[in-house]
């Protein structure tokens, strides 16, 4: 039996607005196990980022139970790191200082922090850029740095919110490949939010598909393609096409979701 890291039951989140109450997500149940790569997939506005923000403790107003590592979310001892859609590096600090910013509050000695920062920058291919400022790097490199920052607090769980959607396709592709390599090397649990069906099919062990109004999980599918996967693998392509078709038939309409399909599928 695998160890469960995250256990969510009956999660509900609503925002009060001037026009009344808007329910962002309702009745969400999910389990995430250790060393697992889970994608939360769905069109824009389906509440996937809301879900991730609750997990990241950015949003503490919710109903339902969220347990992380066997304890309620607020009291968990497990470390969670976050990679945002944008790099969110501090522009006034060098890469090394940016990593120090998150590690210096950890209770570990200075020397091992230094080694850890060095090895994580090397892991994402940024060796030699320790003293560069973020503006001196390309968007892809900045996002690599953000991944290194997340890894260097040695988290048990890595939360990622569409981390590659702001990058060009070629860069995104190489980062996806690297992410799977890093994930396999480090063995963290990854919760990866995306609206890109192909990306999810390529990355995930398991995909949770969400639908909006109110946001909930309508389908849970394991991806049984063996690793290491190639990004051009026809099985990945086939899997994502089936997933999209399935989603469309589930919500019962073809017209509204065309824009949410990855380009590779839309063009075929």
């Amino acid at each position: 039996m695998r160890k469960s890291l995250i256990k969510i039951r009956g999660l509900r989140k609503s925002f009060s607005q001037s026009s009344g109450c808007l329910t962002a997500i309702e009745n969400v149940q999910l389990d995430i196990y250790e060393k697992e790569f889970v994608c939360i997939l769905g069109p824009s506005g389906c509440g996937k980022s809301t879900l991730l923000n609750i997990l990241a403790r950015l949003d503490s107003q919710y109903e339902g139970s969220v347990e992380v590592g066997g304890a309620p979310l607020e009291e968990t001892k497990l470390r969670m790191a976050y990679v945002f859609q944008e790099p969110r590096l501090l522009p006034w600090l060098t890469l090394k200082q940016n990593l120090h910013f998150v590690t210096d509050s950890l209770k570990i000695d200075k020397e091992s922090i230094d080694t850890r920062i060095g090895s994580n920058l090397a892991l994402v291919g940024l060796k030699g850029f320790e003293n560069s400022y973020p503006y001196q790097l390309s968007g892809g490199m900045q996002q690599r740095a953000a991944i290194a920052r997340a890894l260097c607090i040695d988290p048990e769980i890595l939360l990622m919110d569409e981390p590659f959607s702001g990058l060009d396709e070629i860069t995104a592709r190489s980062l996806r490949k690297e992410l799977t390599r890093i994930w396999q090397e480090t063995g963290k649990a990854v919760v990866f939010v995306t609206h890109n069906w192909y990306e999810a099919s390529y990355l995930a062990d398991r995909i949770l598909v969400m639908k909006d109004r109110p946001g909930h999980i309508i389908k849970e599918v394991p991806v049984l393609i063996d690793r290491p996967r190639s990004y051009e693998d026809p099985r990945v392509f086939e899997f994502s096409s089936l997933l999209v078709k399935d989603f469309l038939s589930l919500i019962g309409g073809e017209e509204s979701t065309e824009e949410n399909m990855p380009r590779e599928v839309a063009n075929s």
Partner: protein
Amino acid sequence: MIKWLSTLNDKMPNRLKSMLLFLGLWWFLSLFMSPNVLPSPLATVTAFLNNDASEVLFHVRMTMQRIGMGFFFAMLLGLVLGTMMGVSRVLETWLDMWVMIVLSTPGLVFVVLSFIWFGMNEFATVVAISIASFPSIAINVWQGVKAVDGKLIDMAKVFGISPRMRLKKVILPQIYPYFMASARACLGISWKLTALVELLGRSNGVGYQLNYWFQLYEMDQVIAWTGLFLIIVLSIELFIMNPLEKRLFAWRPEVRI
């Protein structure tokens, strides 16, 4: 000769060039005018050097003291009010109108009121300078606080960074540029106002000297004291503000427009 001139041209900083050009123009114009209207640069410097050095120093010290005190309290008031207005919408709507009113009221009004209420003394002087110069700081800091990027704060929260470190490493660096801009503006206003206060109601300081020599119609002294003031202000800019700015903003890319 021409080659020597062109290498000199390359080596000299532009600021120095423009300064020399200005001195040349001044000298040239003074040739056509009575020394009572525009004395030559040399005559001005000579007249100034005839003053007693310790007396000059005394007046400069008094003026600097007033600017310093006024600047300090203006910064304090401006920082507190600006931060309050940036953080809270309620306080913003309570205060913004008053900051605007003080900003657009002529400094002279505060000088006169302060003298009437507190008497012609140092306290009244500092009050007038601080009140008249704080709005520019409050406005800048207010805008700076409002422009703080909440996304970076969220990032720090997610990584479990303490509120103290969030303030130091995430929030303050975002406000520094606004703070520097406001410090500059405030310094400009407070020294202008100090000169005015000294002219109206003090018996020492650079402003007082300006008025004194103006009454005697000694143009060379008037210009000399003005020049002294300019040199002091320029030194503050070059030796305090500029290096501070370079240190604080070393991380910024150079802007090319």
